[in-house]
């Protein structure tokens, strides 16, 4: 028996929630319980009002599924607002990665050169390794990691995406 799949789109959602215990589990649990994709999820208090947190979720699915994800999130009692930044128009998305690269000699020089191209900062160095800090859109970070893999990538820590709409207006 074949399980059908439909063409999928990637969407970045900004969700403001009441800052209460278990809210992250509630949101993450909604995705797992209903079988929605979750590519990244980040959360922090960002408003003056310490009782509200902002969650950025990158998800993917066919348009009808995205519509459901938004409606289902909106239905959760502690959720204030769900904004589909992808639908809203141009927005900025950034992620931070810490990238550990091991190597000596030529490899080491190559790693430094690539880091410069990607504006990655060295935050730790030994004679045999670097830890780079790099920020940017997820694609830029993917590309950076791909290149580093060739010169001696050993470990990565990534934050997931924080995103915000362009222009003067808040969402």
């Amino acid at each position, binding site marked *: *028996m074949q399980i059908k799949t439909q063409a999928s789109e990637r969407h970045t959602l900004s969700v403001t*929630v*009441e800052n209460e*215990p*278990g809210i992250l*589990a*509630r949101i993450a*649990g909604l995705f797992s*319980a209903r079988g929605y994709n979750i590519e990244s999820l980040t959360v922090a208090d960002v408003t003056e009002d310490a*009782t509200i947190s902002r969650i950025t979720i990158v998800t993917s699915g066919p348009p*009808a599924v995205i*519509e*459901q994800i938004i*409606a*289902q999130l*909106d*239905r*959760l*009692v*502690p*959720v*204030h607002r769900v904004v589909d930044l992808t639908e809203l128009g141009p927005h900025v998305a950034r992620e931070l990665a810490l990238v550990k690269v091991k190597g000596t000699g030529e490899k080491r020089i190559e790693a430094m050169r690539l880091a410069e191209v990607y504006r990655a900062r060295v935050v730790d160095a030994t004679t045999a390794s670097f830890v780079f800090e790099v920020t940017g859109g997820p694609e830029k970070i993917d590309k950076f990691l791909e290149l580093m893999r060739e010169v001696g990538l050993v470990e990565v820590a990534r934050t997931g995406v924080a995103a915000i709409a362009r222009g003067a207006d808040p969402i």
Partner: protein
Amino acid sequence: MAADKTGADILIEALTDLGVEVVFGYPGGAVLPIYDALFKQTKIRHILVRQEGGAAHAAEGYARATGKPGVVLVTSGPGATNAVTGIADALMDSIPMVVITGQVGTPLIGTDAFQECDTIGITRHCTKHNYLVKDPAKLGAVIHEAFYIATSGRPGPVVIDLPKDVQVATAAYRKPAGPGAVAAQHKSYRPQVKADTALIETAVEMLAAAERPVLYTGGGIINAGPAASQMLRELQRISGAPVTSTLMGLGAFPASHPAWLGMLGMHGTYEANHAMNQADLIVALGARFDDRVTGRLDAFAPNARKIHIDIDRSSINKIVRVDVGIVGDVGRAMDDMVRVWKGRAHQAADLSTWFARIDEWRGKKSLAYPESKAAIMPQHAIRRLWEATRHLKPIVSTEVGQHQMWAAQHFDFEGPNKWLTSGGLGTMGYGLPAAIGAQIGHPDALVIDIAGEASIQMNIQELATATQYRLPVKVFILNNEYMGMVRQWQDLTYAGRHSHSYSEALPDFVKLAEAYGWKGMRIEDPDALDGGIAEMLAHDGPVMVDCRVAKLANCFPMIPSGAAHTDMLLYESEVVGEMTDEAKALV
């Protein structure tokens, strides 16, 4: 400043302020302070069930029959986990319910303490919302908020997990100024009650222009209160449209009405399903396009434009894409539609051609069943039960299985809040405690649980609850010795391989009833059916009837999984042997 009270006293006082009259519960170490507080007061009645699952279903039955929220009180750990099935059931069927669970003291949380479990974690996915209250000062507000959330918007179960030290700690309690104050205070939860006017107008124009409309109604209309059922009659009257209903919606529209098509879906009538299939407009009212209703999606109402009115925005376009989605209280939305309709002086369209076709489908008599002199046909038993009791307007609950579907098909309801069944989750063991809850809410009503012999055993211990509170509940078991619905599927799908669907060892239900202090009866002979029903009704107390019915009867009509609404099986002879893997997966 109000004098400080213990958490347990705050709970009781807040429940009293909220108008709670009954709590269904079971005690334990983690709720002893609350039980002590209950002991010291007289306003709230506590109904002691025999298993926490029974408390949850009883609260559901109470809520469904009275329209008021059901309240449950259970201890931590096993008490809470026993209640989970009922909580999940209430979520699926949108039943307003508040469940108070005891929790170990806050210093012990997370230490694997005795009778500790993560109730909040376990119930997160089967509640509308849940709370762990760690600060007694917040308790009063949380209780009021929990009732507001459970009863507003799309109703559902809310859990309040209450650690034992919070129950004994003291704090001030302030009564909110009213439900409006609670709603205004809530920062994020804003159910949309009033529908968009422009969309209502569009819906009215579509209904006025339709040639083959169907009103497809669901449990949401019952949840919206008795006025919504009245409004449905009015909407039907002005538009002339035929009406069908889901399992959960039965009773919102009177079954005796000429525009009534019967239930739709898997075991719905031929006329309801064909009318849906051939409609040019479907107005879904508080119904959610459940898979048991739609059957194969690509063949569901292919030519119809669809309007969907629902209080829950996420129900719209979830399963079926609609042309007009309207978020709002279905009762108010119908009221708005009626007003717009009258304001525009629309006349009911001439639907005689449409009804002529419907009459042809009705001619199939899809609910007909073979008669037998040798054995009681289960459908016949329900029909006779209905005829004997219809004038008493009984409240009927069911368990889950063939008997449930036969009850839905053959027991005709004229009004809302009379039909209690587990539609969404399909929980065997629901019917007896639900009947008990309904009887508590309506002490003078005739309450009957139509049961199967397998289902009734899931919460049989609740017979004792009815005995203790002198509830004259009637349990009418259609005993076919099989888990009939399972066997029916095995006949249809697995070439009659009856894997573990026969009950090898059944109790003597008459003796069992008597052991619990009930009257027990057995009816075996078709000629004894009417007399037996009369005897059951004449007894002024709880009665359990073991009605022996034809063992291999199947429930028709039926849309097999994976089939379209037009491919209904009507008769036994149409039962095919083995299904494809694809169809099996849809079962």
